């Protein structure tokens, strides 16, 4: 089920909302939590019922490991449980996401012809696996601390494992289940346990409606409208036939489509979370205004970056193990980030390029060099825009066709190839104006989230924006287009 679908907006969300608060009002708190879990499982199963057992199995195994860790024991036992947990999660993700990629590469490298398994990738597996990995690692750290304290003859810290329902909600809570934000146990579990969150909160409802509306506008009005240029451009690039203007239109359209698509999804997720008094973390902070690559990754998909920093970069030694090792750690993190986004060389190359960008930026700053913000922003956006081409293209040939055309100034006009017969409900001129507005919004407009959290924003402003956003974007909901990040 998509947030931008009628079945979600008119049926699923109202029913879940009424059932959740209705049961809480009757003081049936465990039932209310159960309703949230059941609704989330139904939300997930709506995409494909066969995904459900995989997710349920993953929840049960990880919770079991968490319980075993919570019971404590020798360090060896804890380490064994941690290893099992990590292997299980990486194995699950590896099997479903990377098996065919591995076979393809073995076939290519050794001229073998092993048959592809054509394994169906369960939706959101990259997200819920990372979240549970965080839970297992955090449980290990807590248990290890307890063991350490006991050996030092200090009283053990009693950090009990969350209840199973709270854990299920942490993993499956439907606003963040399919495409994040990637939440951590420490920020979610207390919210599900907090008794104050069981009651309707008008302010949260108003904020939730406002930011949901803004997300819906970003997705259905902006991202889906400018997507037509990106889709047509990449299709044409398969044959290599793009002019310079078309190549730039293609790359810029995708750059802003991806941003408004994913940011729109996250805004909607935050909004829906607020309707249930759950605050999800911010995932985007006007990323195209970043003045360098490091800054970009502090603003783009912030929760993925946080996860990789906390659970990969720091355990690898972070920046505390010497210069060369620090750069290697950065490269490893971005290699994993690329691979996490998709099982393909284009994603890996994209990730490594970003890693190199961050390394150069780090060296530049360490060397005491600085650029004016406007120049840094321009250069960063320029390269990020090019790297999105690699990210979007089905293969490096197509990516190269687009990138080459971007710098081939022999033809500067838009041809009919790109602009005719686009599958759009709006005319090209309007789509072009939407692209222009998207660029302005991304570079100079206030973010929807900052408007929401700004104390000075009046409730009436939020009300007006919520009403306008929902009533305008509802006309575009029937062109149901999946969120781009569902693929990752």
């Amino acid at each position, binding site marked *: 089920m998509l947030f931008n679908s009628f079945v979600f907006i008119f049926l699923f969300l109202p029913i879940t909302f009424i059932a959740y608060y209705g049961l809480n009002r009757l003081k049936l708190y465990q039932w209310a939590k159960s309703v949230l879990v059941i609704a989330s499982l139904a939300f997930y199963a709506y995409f494909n019922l066969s995904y459900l057992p995989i997710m349920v199995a993953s929840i049960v195994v990880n919770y079991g490991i968490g319980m075993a860790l919570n019971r404590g024991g020798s360090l060896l036992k804890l380490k064994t449980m941690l290893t099992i947990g990590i292997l299980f999660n990486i194995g699950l993700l590896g099997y479903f996401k990377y098996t065919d990629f591995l076979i393809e590469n073995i076939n290519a490298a050794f001229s073998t012809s092993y048959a592809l398994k054509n394994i169906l990738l369960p939706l959101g597996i990259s997200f819920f696996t990372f979240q549970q990995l965080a839970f297992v690692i955090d449980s290990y750290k807590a248990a290890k601390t307890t063991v350490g304290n006991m050996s030092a003859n200090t009283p053990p810290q009693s950090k009990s494992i969350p209840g199973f329902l709270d854990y299920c909600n942490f993993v499956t809570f439907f606003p963040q289940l399919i495409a994040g934000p990637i939440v951590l146990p420490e920020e979610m579990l207390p919210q599900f346990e907090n008794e104050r969150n069981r009651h309707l909160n*008008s*302010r949260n409802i108003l904020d939730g409606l406002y930011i949901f509306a803004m997300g819906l506008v970003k997705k259905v009005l902006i991202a889906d409208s400018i997507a037509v240029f990106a889709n047509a451009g990449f299709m044409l690039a398969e044959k290599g036939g793009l002019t310079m203007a078309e190549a730039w239109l293609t790359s810029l359209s995708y750059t802003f489509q991806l941003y408004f698509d994913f940011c729109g999804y996250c805004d909607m997720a935050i909004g829906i979370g607020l309707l249930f008094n759950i605050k999800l973390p911010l995932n985007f902070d006007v990323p195209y205004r970043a003045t360098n690559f490091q800054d970009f990754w502090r603003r783009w998909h912030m929760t993925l970056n946080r996860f990789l920093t906390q659970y990969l970069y720091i355990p690898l030694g972070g920046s505390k193990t010497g210069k060369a090792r620090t750069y290697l750690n950065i490269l490893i993190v971005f290699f994993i980030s690329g691979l996490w986004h998709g099982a393909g060389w284009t994603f890996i190359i994209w990730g490594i390029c970003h890693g190199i960008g961050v390394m150069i930026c780090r060296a530049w700053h360490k060397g005491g060099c600085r650029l004016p913000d406007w120049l840094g922003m321009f250069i960063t956006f320029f390269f990020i825009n090019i790297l999105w081409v690699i990210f979007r293209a089905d293969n490096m040939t197509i990516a190269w066709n687009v990138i080459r055309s971007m710098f081939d100034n022999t033809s500067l006009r838009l041809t009919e190839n790109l602009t005719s017969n686009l599958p759009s409900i709006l005319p090209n001129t309007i789509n072009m104006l939407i692209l222009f507005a998207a660029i302005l919004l991304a570079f100079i407009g206030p973010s929807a989230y900052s408007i929401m959290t700004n104390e000075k924003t009046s409730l009436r402003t939020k009300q007006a924006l919520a*009403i306008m956003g929902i009533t305008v974007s509802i006309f575009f909901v029937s062109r149901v287009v999946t969120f781009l990040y569902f693929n990752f």
Partner: protein
Amino acid sequence: MARKIAIQTLVIIIVLLAAIAGFIIWADPYQQYRASDDFVGNQRLEIPGVARNHDYNAAIMGSSMVMNHSPEQIDSLFGWRTYNFSFMGATHDDFGIALPFIIKQGKVKHIIFDIDYFTYASKEKRMAEYLWDDNILNDVSYWFNYTSLEHAIQKLRNPIKRKNLYNFHDEETEAKVYDSYSKAIGGEGFDSRIYDMGHNAMAMNFDNTVGHAIKASSGKVEWLLFFPPYSAAEYARIEHFGHLEDFLKLRKHIVDNYCTLPNVRMFDFQADKSIVCDLNQYNDTRHHSHAYNRMTVSEMENGGHGISKRNIDSNNAEIRRISSEFIRSYHQR
């Protein structure tokens, strides 16, 4: 204060959405709820409502090849009450959805249907399926829809009357046919992402959609199937891209499997040299004049140009000859 504004927001949103839905239901641009004499001219969106709410006992269906057929002309010849339910750029997916729905209405007793190979090669899906069923719940996609809103306004301000519906006319000349052919063969041919020109795929697509509807409606609906008269240039175009035999095998498959069914009569205008080589009757390699519309339905009424297992091979051989002759004459020009 926050509570009051939150409730107000929800109420205003609900009222506005109800008003939008109410407006679309009232204007009913696609005639989903009641018949109207005012049309908007979009076949895939409009035909389901018309099929449900108008009065008719016959339909002419198919691709753009029959889009300009006048229902009145058919009525005057056959004595039916006909509606034109054709689709521009028809695909087999269109017919897989439209035919069961139209037949289910229980009104249509006769269907004149053109067999256009393009339809069965195309992989595209263009139907707004929520309009082609009786499920009231999915009408929400009709109410809250930018295209519905545009068409509702068009219907109120500038409706199309039935006699002008889907009546596109363009000048027919030999020069246009040659020009269209030159452009076609200068291009890249049938895009394999959109078309599967293999005869097995096309035959399967026909069987699963039109063929299935024909067999399922046996005893209820009479079918007049016909191969529409493309120009000779169209055969040459298909041959240029290496698919002439696929095209001919599809024809044979359909004739062999359907011409003997009790509810089917079948006609072939594609192998008549006097028709397909008169290029002044065409405005591109495929689409022909109104004169040919009249001719084809008159012939069907008279029983002329029949096709059966007996003459399919000779007709296919004739198409091969026509194609070769066109290619030869084109190069000699």
